[in-house]
């Protein structure tokens, strides 16, 4: 600390240092240290270290929120270790409205995380660091650079609406929209998540500075969140940011990590057979084109002498000829004039460098500096963080710059003003294209090619050289020797360096607030907050790429203002009865405006990415403006009797602008009861140090999305001046009602052996009814869907959180935290006569659905035909398929999820690791469905059960027998050729169910080794007050999984459509260091 209180310098004293820790040995930040009987004092820094001048014989009183206070007498020693005991009963946590309450008063489930738990194994999106740490919170992170993270608490509740957790910072919500690529040419504009191509632009909550997070409190059920309003019905993560403390503190942090592709999440390839679909071509054996090199490789006239073999490079599969180094063939390189191999044949062998050599190591760096300080009247904090992430694909990078400032000032005894402002800027280039890009912009997603469509004879290094040499789209996938343009795929380096996206988001959010203390038991808070950002996304397809060259620009502006006025009452009516109440109003106004424009029919001038460079006049841009407003009034009362019985009652009434007049006001109540029974069992059960039961019931009303009430016409581009109009595919509803969530929760909190073991078990059941959904209807009604109030989803489940300190000595401690949760989700009703609601149709004849009587997220498609549990084959030896393509073939929901954190501390070292697990849930892999069809994977080559090459014809002992039974129930004995489609989904061979996999995993998610330089070393390093050095590993090891060649957690985007992999991104093992200096 730079500044010490001036008074202390005048005293006859010595400087002493100390460290305040909890019983686990964690430093307690911001503990206050004062000298008994004086006004002198100091505040411990972030790791619990403090410095104070005192005289021998003084008594230091140390106190911190959430801990019993302790005292210590100054002796001749210069260093004092102070251990404070956890005080469960007075630990303060923040509720959704930003009101702090003591944990023991809360009659509903919450779980708290320290800022340190999130930032120590930092990733560039702090949300990813929540995985496995909170019971009931399902975090699904994507492997894409800057990918959005799916954050679901207690299951999906809304059929088609938002199911993501709400993030609230210091009482103010922050927007977490995911603005992934919008496809304006399709009826379903947001096709990115269904695998239709585009980019995952991440979610907006990633703009929060992880270094500014003091703690997080996860509010899980409606009783905890009802007062906050309908947006909180998916659960709330309340973030409390750091507050400036007395004196001046500076923390500097730097770290770097390298990400290595986890080979278990990337394909292994067969390397015996090259490009082609079989013996289908011109040469006598059928595997090659048969052209005359001397005659320009033309097909006609047929060569009379010296015919030359040309690889059928237009075919993006590997069911071609067996490699044979003695065979000389012309491959794609022979048609690149700049290649040393130009017009020369070469041996027919596997490419030296398979697609894994396309991938680079990811690299992340981060720097941050946080300043804080304060005096008696006020305090401030100022932080800056810079993060740079370079991805595993060439030409990919995301840079984040975050600045935050916060301050508060006590104007007088009763009036405090505070404010904060955050600025963030995120710039991305070359995020990875996702999914299956279809016909128009195919080949942007290089993973789609590497996993589904590839020729084993291609050497990736040669593609790199060809691109670098020419700067042109020299591809392995020429259409023909006489037509040198891509058939289906560009050179992947061309795709990465020429067909890239760029994006940028600038965001401000913050608030100003005044708190006025009317008297000792009432204070009033007036607060206004703003969250506002602008973003731009630009996408490109370069001239000479496959398909239509293109440039598009998407601009979006978001702003949300909240006006809050709240009175908080806290009064002891008599010594036994405490009364707390909150009454308030909230007005929220959210405005969104966007415009999307793209070139029409191609670009004129190569490499000029501007709308004016459109081949044809551009079509009218798509504009959208929405304004939503909700006016709410709310009140709650908590009655506490003798500090062991708490009754909490709440009610809120909202008026919403997005529901029709007359139906747009709705009221909802909540009630909760908590009973600390350990008050009465201290004597009878001495080992039970704390026991509480909770029970609550709450309802929450919810409004409609904007523009769901009135019909409008759509206006496509007119044809040569003749205007066109169409009716929207969705029928809107002028009679909508609010939807409603009803939830019940009960739980028990126990602590044993003076808190060395604590256990929290919660059971909940939640029904969301009258949901506002676009109900799919038969197209013969003239519409695709109709907005209705329908449906009921039930979620019930159990959450267990266990914490234990098996070993605790002065030098060594071991702490285990365990979270387990299972959620059972059931779609109970979808409206009259409706049995299924399709959430998305994905490539491969598969759809993701909500079906009555099934969990939310059923995978439908064609199934095997089973006989006594065995797959049935037809007379030809192929699998029979179900008669419809509409069978339920999977459920994306896990059976349970869990996480275990272990922390070991020895002196100044600490070792921390997190194991994250998910059991069950299914995923459909289009990658496997196509990759097996196209002969990419080792399953399609090698030897069969007879020891013969499986790709040899059946007549020569090759081929395979599919496991299963004949239609009469006897085992299948029919051997079939291993050819295009035999194991895959193309060519109508196998049902989609063949490529539905168990998505279970166990991962070593985080491993952190930290060394805190001890005080005696630091003493000589003035002005440095502390140094922590950490080695950090994340996603180090997938201990268990069943999905081959991919990460089962990987998805296309956050959102309601999960359980589908298409061109999926491999996981990276990240290893790095972090160095933290405190001044």
């Amino acid at each position: 600390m730079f500044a010490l209180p001036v008074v202390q310098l005048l005293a006859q004293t010595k400087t002493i240092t100390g460290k305040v820790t909890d019983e686990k040995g964690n430093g307690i930040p911001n503990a206050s240290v004062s000298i008994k009987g004086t006004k002198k004092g100091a505040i411990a820094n972030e790791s619990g270290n403090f410095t104070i001048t005192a005289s021998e014989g003084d008594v230091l009183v140390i106190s911190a929120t959430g801990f019993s206070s302790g005292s210590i007498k100054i002796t001749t020693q210069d260093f004092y270790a102070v251990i404070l005991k956890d005080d469960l009963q007075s630990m303060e946590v923040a509720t959704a409205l930003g009101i702090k309450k003591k944990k023991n008063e809360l009659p509903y489930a919450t779980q708290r995380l320290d800022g340190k738990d999130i930032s120590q194994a930092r990733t560039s999106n702090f949300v990813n660091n929540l995985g496995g740490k909170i019971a009931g919170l399902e975090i699904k992170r994507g492997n894409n650079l800057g990918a959005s993270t799916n954050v679901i608490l207690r299951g999906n509740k809304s059929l088609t609406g938002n199911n993501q957790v709400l993030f609230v910072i210091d009482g103010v919500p922050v927007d977490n929209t995911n603005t992934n690529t919008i496809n304006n040419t399709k009826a379903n504009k947001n096709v990115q998540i269904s695998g239709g191509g585009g980019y995952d632009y991440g979610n907006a909550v990633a703009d929060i500075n992880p270094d500014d997070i003091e703690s997080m409190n996860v509010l899980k059920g409606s009783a905890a969140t009802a007062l906050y309003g309908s947006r909180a019905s998916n659960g709330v993560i309340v973030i409390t940011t750091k507050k400036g403390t007395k004196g001046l503190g500076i923390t500097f942090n730097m770290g770097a990590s390298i990400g290595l592709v986890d080979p278990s999440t990337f394909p292994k390839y067969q390397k015996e057979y090259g490009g082609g679909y079989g013996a289908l071509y011109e040469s006598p054996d059928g595997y090659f084109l048969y052209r005359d090199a001397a005659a320009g490789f033309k097909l006609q006239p047929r060569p009379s002498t010296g015919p030359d073999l040309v690889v059928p490079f237009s075919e993006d599969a590997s069911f071609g000829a067996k490699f044979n180094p003695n065979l000389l063939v012309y491959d794609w390189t022979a048609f690149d004039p700049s290649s040393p191999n130009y017009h020369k044949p070469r041996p027919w062998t596997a490419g030296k460098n398979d697609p894994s050599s396309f991938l680079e190591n990811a690299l992340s760096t981060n720097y941050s500096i946080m300043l804080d300080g304060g005096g008696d009247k006020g305090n401030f904090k100022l932080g800056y963080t810079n993060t740079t992430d370079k991805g595993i694909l060439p030409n990919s990078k995301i840079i984040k710059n975050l600045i935050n400032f916060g301050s508060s000032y006590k104007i007088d005894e009763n009036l405090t003003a505070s404010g904060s402002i955050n600025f963030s800027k995120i710039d991305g280039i070359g995020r990875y294209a996702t999914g299956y890009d279809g016909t128009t912009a195919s080949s942007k997603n290089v993973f789609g090619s590497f996993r589904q469509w590839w020729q084993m004879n291609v050497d990736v290094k040669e593609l790199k050289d060809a691109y670098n040499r020419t700067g042109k789209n020299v591809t392995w996938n020429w259409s023909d020797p006489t037509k040198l343009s891509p058939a289906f795929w560009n050179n992947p380096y061309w795709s990465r360096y020429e067909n890239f996206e760029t994006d940028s988001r600038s965001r401000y959010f913050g608030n100003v607030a005044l708190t006025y203390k009317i008297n000792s038991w009432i204070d009033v808070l007036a607060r206004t907050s703003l969250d506002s950002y602008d973003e731009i996304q630009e996408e490109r397809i370069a001239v000479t790429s496959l398909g239509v060259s293109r440039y598009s620009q998407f601009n979006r502006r978001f702003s949300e203002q909240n006006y809050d006025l709240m009175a908080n009452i806290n009064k002891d009516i008599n010594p036994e009865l405490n009364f707390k109440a909150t009454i308030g109003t909230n007005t929220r106004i959210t405005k969104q405006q966007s415009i999307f424009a793209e070139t029409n029919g191609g670009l004129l001038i190569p490499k000029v990415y501007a709308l004016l460079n459109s081949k044809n006049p551009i079509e009218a841009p798509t504009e959208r403006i929405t304004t939503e407003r909700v006016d709410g009034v709310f009140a709650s009362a908590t009655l506490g009797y003798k500090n062991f019985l708490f009754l909490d009652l709440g009610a809120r009434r909202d008026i919403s602008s997005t529901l029709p007049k007359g139906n747009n006001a709705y009221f909802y109540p909540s009630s909760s009861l908590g009973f600390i029974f350990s008050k009465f069992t201290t004597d009878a059960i001495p080992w039970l140090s704390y026991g509480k039961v909770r029970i609550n019931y709450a309802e929450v009303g919810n409004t409609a999305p904007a523009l769901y009430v009135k019909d409008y016409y759509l206006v496509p581009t007119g044809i040569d001046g003749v205007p066109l109009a169409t009716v929207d595919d969705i029928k809107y509803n002028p009679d909508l009602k609010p939807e409603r969530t009803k939830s019940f929760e009960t739980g028990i909190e126990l602590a044993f052996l003076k808190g060395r073991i604590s256990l929290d078990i919660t059971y909940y059941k939640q029904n969301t009814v009258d949901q506002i959904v676009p109900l799919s209807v038969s197209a013969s009604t003239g519409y695709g869907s109709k907005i209705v109030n329908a449906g009921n989803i039930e979620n019930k489940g159990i959450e267990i959180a266990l914490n234990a300190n098996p070993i605790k000595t002065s030098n060594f401690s071991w702490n285990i935290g365990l979270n387990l949760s299972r959620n059972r989700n059931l779609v109970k009703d979808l409206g009259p006569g409706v049995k299924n609601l399709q959430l998305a149709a994905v490539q491969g004849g598969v759809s993701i659905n909500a079906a009555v009587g099934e969990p939310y997220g059923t995978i439908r498609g064609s199934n095997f035909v089973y006989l006594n549990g065995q797959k049935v084959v037809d007379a030809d030896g192929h699998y029979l398929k179900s008669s419809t393509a509409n069978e339920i073939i999977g459920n994306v929901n896990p059976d349970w999820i869990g996480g275990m954190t272990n922390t070991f501390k020895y002196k100044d070292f600490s070792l921390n690791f997190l194991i994250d697990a998910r059991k069950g849930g299914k995923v459909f892999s289009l990658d496997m469905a196509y990759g097996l069809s196209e002969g990419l994977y080792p399953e399609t080559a090698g030897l069969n059960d007879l020891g013969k090459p499986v790709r040899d014809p059946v007549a020569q002992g090759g081929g395979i027998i599919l496991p299963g039974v004949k239609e009469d129930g006897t085992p299948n004995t029919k051997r079939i050729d291993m050819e295009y489609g035999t194991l895959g989904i193309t060519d109508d061979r196998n049902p989609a169910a063949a490529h539905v996999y168990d998505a279970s995993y166990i991962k070593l998610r985080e491993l952190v080794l930290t060394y805190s330089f001890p005080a005696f070393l630091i003493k000589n390093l003035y002005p440095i007050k502390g140094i922590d050095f950490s080695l950090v590993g994340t996603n180090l090891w997938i201990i268990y999984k069943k999905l081959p060649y991919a990460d089962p957690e990987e998805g296309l985007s956050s959102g309601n459509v999960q359980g589908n992999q298409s061109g999926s991104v491999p996981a990276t093992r990240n290893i790095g260091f972090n160095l933290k200096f405190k001044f």
Partner: protein
Amino acid sequence: MKKILRYITTSCLMFAFFSSCKKDITSLNENPKLPSNVDPGTLFANAQKKLTDILTTPSQFENICRLFTQYWAETVYTSESRYANIMTNNIPGRFWNVLYANVLKSLYEAKKLINAKNAGIDAIAKNKLALIDILIVYTYSVLVDTYGNVPYSEALNVENIHPKYDDASTIYNDLLVKLDAAINSLDISKTSFGVSDIIYKGDIDRWKKFANSIKLRMGMRLVDVSGSNAKNIVEQAVQSGVFQSNADGAMFTYSTVPPNTNPIWENLIQNERNDFVAAQPFVDTMNALNDPRRMAYFTKVGNAYIGGKYGSQNNYVAFSHVGDRLIAENMESFLMEYTEVEFLLAEAVERGFAVGGTAEGHYKSAITASMQYWNVPQPDIDAYLLQPAVAYSTATGDYKQKIGTQKWIAFYNRPFEAWCEWKRLDYPVLVKPANAASDIPKRLRYPVREQNLNKEAYDQAAGAIPGGDLFTSKVFWD
């Protein structure tokens, strides 16, 4: 300072207080970027475009008829030409959705707006309503010809999300009534949609011929199931006036500017796909007849027209591709042509209907009209007609085979009509490819979405089809 802050507090309080008793906030929920009212002509124009698009598109996922008729063969991915993956790729659903939710929805909406606008419907509005009805009849006939029983009497009413399926022949009869009413209400002296009528620019006289030609076609569809009824319909239509020349054809003109370009250009040229080559059965037939239209239909390989093997993988460069005229951005497309009328009349004569002329005469006119449209010089036309394999008296087979074969050749760019007439005439003889998933489809199965969303009605409809909801079941007139 303190005072200022107290003022701020007070004003926040005031805002909070007054905001909660503000005027009706639902007015915020309006979309300023889209119209809530449009001219009915814009919807009518849209219906014309969507109908032409779906009948023209070469995308096997939207309209698979160019494969069913073996005009084209696939190159790399061949499952559709073997009638596999048709349900998986939702081909029946896409066709159905466009006809109902785009074409018919636009037409009914235009009708609703006209009816709402005019307290007393004037002659212009009457003309407009008649034109709408003619296209409604046309569209429903496509649906019935494709699927059989379809939702009709309860369709296009979103209040009823489970419309029942009506009997196909009942629908046909009702469509004919509707068509007659429309023909009778046309007033040639009055205008209608003007430029919003992309096909005829509001020319009521030609609309009348178009309507009668549709009636002729629908009547001929019925010949095998209801001969006397068909005779009446056909004779009435001819009497009232059908197409007289190529100039009468119901032609939709595409733009040179995307997105209103011809779907063939969009799929084959703009998207740079090499998915199709000419198919051998068709090319070989034309080669045998030395048909001069090949020049327009296909490109040459070396000096020859070579078709790829239907149902197998084909090397794109080894075979003839789609001809240059067909792949122009603004290549026009027809809902109905004069050549079709003449073919129908030739058959009507053979069936003994009083439509005038001889079968041979109409047959010759039909071929001549087709060739003239494809810019074949007159001497070449004459020479073609003189060939024994072409000439009506000497060509192989009965009238069904002669007419069927020449229709197949003439309808190259009208694949849906070619498929229907192949079903009805059973000529030309098309052979399913080896390892086909079924026989050549004679109808499309109902979309999977219908099975999910309108199950009771679907089950009933599927149950009503002899043989069930299969690709190989027949529609009622087949």
